[in-house]
């Protein structure tokens, strides 16, 4: 069968109008995007896809039941052929996904691309960042070694401190008052079902809004030239993706994943610490009372979500003072200080 015949056969069975593909591919992008720094928007999605692929592979062997969970992770890491590689890629991609989402957010923040009418694109973006943390937390809990178990205990206990709905929420998440066999199966379900479904829906909304609004103009950039999404921008994104994948593979080969001691609900280990991306909140909880820590965290996340409107209000309050930028940068720096403080302690 020749290519033309095959194409005709397919066109008859899948009568998709050609402009459906051509329009997004030939989309005109402003010229300021034609730099490497603007080619990182697609990387979180790439890392997500890597995690979906490796995550599906891991479910072939992982057993989400406390007596077997740790043993199954041990088997994946040290027993099954290339299990270390698949788990390592899954783990490294999750860390890089967090970095990529954060870099993307910082870029959008710095260029104030969230301003009207693109507020909802930002809100969906921040929600995706929170879901990335949700992925990390639930995924880390599944390992069921000492650090993973106690991170789950501490992380879920925070919910109980929320007034009125804290306890019911905790019971719902844990499947009981304490960390029990239900908890692991619930966190597993969140990790492979609920969070990815929400993530895909939000990515869809995020991308749809970017397509509908077009790329945000860069403040102060008077250039009128444009270039096509395909091949110029797409190839740049693909190049970044390939380099990232190569880096992940090299990293995993040099640092294969490890595994701590089996979870012991009777003994909190002496040097407990969460994964590095939770360092800021971990340090913050050490230095302030619990209720203060909880409510400032809620306020921080809420102000991140509502940032486009807060920034606009500050702009109206003191035009051209860049109050929003000053407060925002101070917030980012404070988070960074907490992270470095915890890392060095």
């Amino acid at each position: 069968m020749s290519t033309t015949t095959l194409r005709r056969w397919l066109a008859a069975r899948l009568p998709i109008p050609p402009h459906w593909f051509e329009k997004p591919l030939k989309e005109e992008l402003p010229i300021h995007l034609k730099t490497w720094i603007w080619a990182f928007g697609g990387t979180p999605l790439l890392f997500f896809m890597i995690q979906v692929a490796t995550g599906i592979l891991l479910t072939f062997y992982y057993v989400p039941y406390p007596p077997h969970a740790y043993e199954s992770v041990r088997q994946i890491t040290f027993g099954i052929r290339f299990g270390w590689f698949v788990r390592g890629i899954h783990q490294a991609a999750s860390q890089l996904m967090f970095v990529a989402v954060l870099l993307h957010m910082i870029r959008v923040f710095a260029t104030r691309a969230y301003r009207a009418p693109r507020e909802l694109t930002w809100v969906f973006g921040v929600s995706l960042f929170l879901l990335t943390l949700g992925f990390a937390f639930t995924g880390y809990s599944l390992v069921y070694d000492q650090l993973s178990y106690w991170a789950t205990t501490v992380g879920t206990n925070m919910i109980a401190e929320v007034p009125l709905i804290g306890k019911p929420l905790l019971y719902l998440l844990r499947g009981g008052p304490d960390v029990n066999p239900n908890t692991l199966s619930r966190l597993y379900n969140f990790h492979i079902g609920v969070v990815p479904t929400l993530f895909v829906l939000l990515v869809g909304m995020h991308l749809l809004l970017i397509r509908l609004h077009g790329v945000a103009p860069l403040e102060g950039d008077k250039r009128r030239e444009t270039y096509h999404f395909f091949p110029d921008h797409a190839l740049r994104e693909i190049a970044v993706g390939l380099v990232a994948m190569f880096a992940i593979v090299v990293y995993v080969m040099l640092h294969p994943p490890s595994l701590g001691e089996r979870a012991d609900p009777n003994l909190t280990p002496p040097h407990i610490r969460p994964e590095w991306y939770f360092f800021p909140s971990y340090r913050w909880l050490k230095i302030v009372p619990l209720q203060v820590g909880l409510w400032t965290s809620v306020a921080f996340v809420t102000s991140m979500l509502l940032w486009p409107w807060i920034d606009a209000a500050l702009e109206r309050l003191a035009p051209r003072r860049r109050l929003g930028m000053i407060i925002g940068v101070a917030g980012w720096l404070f988070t960074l200080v907490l992270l470095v403080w915890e890392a060095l302690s």
Partner: protein
Amino acid sequence: MAQDIPRGSGRREFLANLVLGIAGLLSVGGFASRLFEFLYPVVPPERLIEVPVAGRDQIPRNGGIVVNLPAGHVALVDAAGELRAFSAVCTHLGCIIKWQPEAHSVWFCPCHKGTYDRNGHVVSGPPPRPLQRYEVAIRKGKVYVKIPYRPPVLPA
């Protein structure tokens, strides 16, 4: 000539929309509440039980130990011959405390570095409340403690 009435502006149409809206909300709410019940665990009530936790001679003078029982974690401390019992669960975020004789004889939580004294009171760090105190009794050289117990939600 009949006047055009904008859709939705008539009283009849408003009432119809209202009834439909309420019916829709009730059906969705009813369905969602069943789903919530499906997911929400059936938590058995807590009751106080007395359990033997250790021999009196196992607790060193002016020292403390943590005993792990299926019913919970108990911290026992000797204060100049007087025995006290607490929950060994840190009131901050639920980690298990341990006795630290070398650091001014305090209960120490490794998670966020909170410390408690022999009376279970917070000495330093972020714990919001003192340790939960338990009633303790000594009979024939054995230490008995009354602790709140809740049967497991799922058989382990």
